[in-house]
């Protein structure tokens, strides 16, 4: 009897131990470990697809005394996204960190981060979530500082301190809940919770702490320098997965712990912050001088879109309409994950080839790096939300929901954000194509260019066409 949930956490953990203990074979072990981890993660998704939610009790005690691992449609979808994105990043990293010291440092931390990510997505216990958050935070910071440049270390040190402030605040919320309800299990706490000062304070503390980690406006100040200065594969994982994990946690808590006590005002506030993030992030992306900085600001905007779903979810009663909204949220999060990972990997190729990533001087990139330019264009399709990308469907359902709940003002925000996104993506592409593209070879270094291309292609085409599978995975009726 194999427990696929526990395997999804322990396999990357063991891979981390192996690459730490045997630094001589780090590259080979890294590829094997990445494939094994992706397989066990996808195994969880397949089982959720077949049987619905899964739950396992490490230690066999069961809640409330023991702690549990749980996978439902939401976590299974994100787990699959993380597996595919992380596998692509791993293959890219074999080409990116080809030799030298940094390779020895990258792989162990990378597998620990992957393990933390899977553990966070599967956790069903509020304190266990705190431990996974810290593991994720420390590994992300260490990986982000791997270039060793002063800006990178300084930016990631700030990220570390802000992250610790966030997780301590989260933990205080957990302690208040434990004081009042005597349990740490998510489902049991959600069943026991009653409206009152304790529940409200815990909601504010936990959401606030996680908002710092998810870089929700106006708590986003640390993100652009930390993400823009990390090595390309690390930027990709930070933007596509790590920030998303903190956001997932907010969503999980609002649905499963605080579902009964969230007020329209609280959801509206989160929506308002999301709207500000969409406009501010897109605007700064348009003004950014460097490609990686542009990508980092665009992440702020994308997190903003996800926040816009909260007021609509709150206002929509249980039923197919709410299911559609929830699935659309996940679809947008996944599309963005693939698109942003692809964009950062392609930006890394550009930076490597041109020696810089200043947007104004990208002339002729298309000529030298056709595959990277094509990846940027495809990722741009998903970031703008053009059909047939998954974010097109996501935004469409978001706007429908806004009309149906009478909150039409969010549509304005979405339109402005989309126009700005189109502007910043076309700005990059117009610079890249300003010389006649006469590519000699489409792909020059397969191990780095193909992963970027596949990620971008998934975000722009596959997710849009295969969106119905997501509804099926989450156990909802197929969208009309």
């Amino acid at each position: 009897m194999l427990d696929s949930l526990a395997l999804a956490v322990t396999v990357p953990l063991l891979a981390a131990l192996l690459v730490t203990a045997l630094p001589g074979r780090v590259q080979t072990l890294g590829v094997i470990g990445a494939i094994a981890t992706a397989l066990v993660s996808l195994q969880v998704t397949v089982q959720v697809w077949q049987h619905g939610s899964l739950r396992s009790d490490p230690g066999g005690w069961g809640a409330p005394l023991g702690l549990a691992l749980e996978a439902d449609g939401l976590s299974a979808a994100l787990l699959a996204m993380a597996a595919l994105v992380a596998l692509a990043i791993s293959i890219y990293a074999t080409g990116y960190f080809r030799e030298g010291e940094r390779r020895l440092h990258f792989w162990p931390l990378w597998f620990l981060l992957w393990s933390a990510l899977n553990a966070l997505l599967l956790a069903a216990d509020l304190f266990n979530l705190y431990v996974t958050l810290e593991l994720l935070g420390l590994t992300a910071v260490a990986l982000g500082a791997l270039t060793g440049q002063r800006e990178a270390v300084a930016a990631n040190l700030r990220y570390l301190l802000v992250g610790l402030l966030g997780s301590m605040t989260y933990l205080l919320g957990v302690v208040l809940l434990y004081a009042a309800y005597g349990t740490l299990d998510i489902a049991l706490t959600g069943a026991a919770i009653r409206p009152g000062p304790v529940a409200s304070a815990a909601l504010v503390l936990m959401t606030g702490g996680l908002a710092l980690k998810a870089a929700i406006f106006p708590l986003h100040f640390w993100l652009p320098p930390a993400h823009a200065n990390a090595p390309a594969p690390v930027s990709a994982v930070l933007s596509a997965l790590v920030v998303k994990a903190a956001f997932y946690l907010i969503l999980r808590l609002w649905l499963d712990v605080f579902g009964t006590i969230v007020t329209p005002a609280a959801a509206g506030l989160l929506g308002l912050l999301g709207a500000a993030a969409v406009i501010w992030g897109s605007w700064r992306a348009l003004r950014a001088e460097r490609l990686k900085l542009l990508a980092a600001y665009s992440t702020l905007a994308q997190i903003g879109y996800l926040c816009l779903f909260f007021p609509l979810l709150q206002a929509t009663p249980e039923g197919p309409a709410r299911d559609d909204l929830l699935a659309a949220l996940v679809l947008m999060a996944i599309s963005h994950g693939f698109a942003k990972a692809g964009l950062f990997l392609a930006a890394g190729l550009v930076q490597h080839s041109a020696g810089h990533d200043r947007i104004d001087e990208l002339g002729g990139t298309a000529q030298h790096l056709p595959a990277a330019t094509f990846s940027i264009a495809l990722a741009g399709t998903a970031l703008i939300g053009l059909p047939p990308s998954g974010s097109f469907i996501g935004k469409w359902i978001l706007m429908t929901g806004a009309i149906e709940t009478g909150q039409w003002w969010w549509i304005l925000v979405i339109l402005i954000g989309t126009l700005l996104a189109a502007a910043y993506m076309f700005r990059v592409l117009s610079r890249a194509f300003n010389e006649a593209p006469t590519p000699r070879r489409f792909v020059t270094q397969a191990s780095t260019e193909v992963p970027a291309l596949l990620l971008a292609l998934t975000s722009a085409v596959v997710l849009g066409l295969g969106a119905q599978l997501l509804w099926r995975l989450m156990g909802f009726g197929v969208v009309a």
Partner: protein
Amino acid sequence: MTAHLLYGGAGILLFVLGVWSFLVHEALLRKVIALNVMGSGVFHLLIAIAERGSLPPDPVPHALVLTGIVVAVSATALALAMGRRLEDEDDAR
């Protein structure tokens, strides 16, 4: 009841004092101390709620605090090492 409020209240005050110091001081070491005091506040709150009610006290919060202490010292070590790296670079210039 009064004693629990006293001890728990001290935990909350430590947390808030830590937040205050974290926000107003710039130097890395002071921010690290502030974070550790914040953490100690939360841990102290856990110990205080473990003790109420029956004897012997609730072991679950005790174990959580033990875990928390190790996590806090790990983060402290990493933050200070990063700070030292920055100082070394400043000195080399």
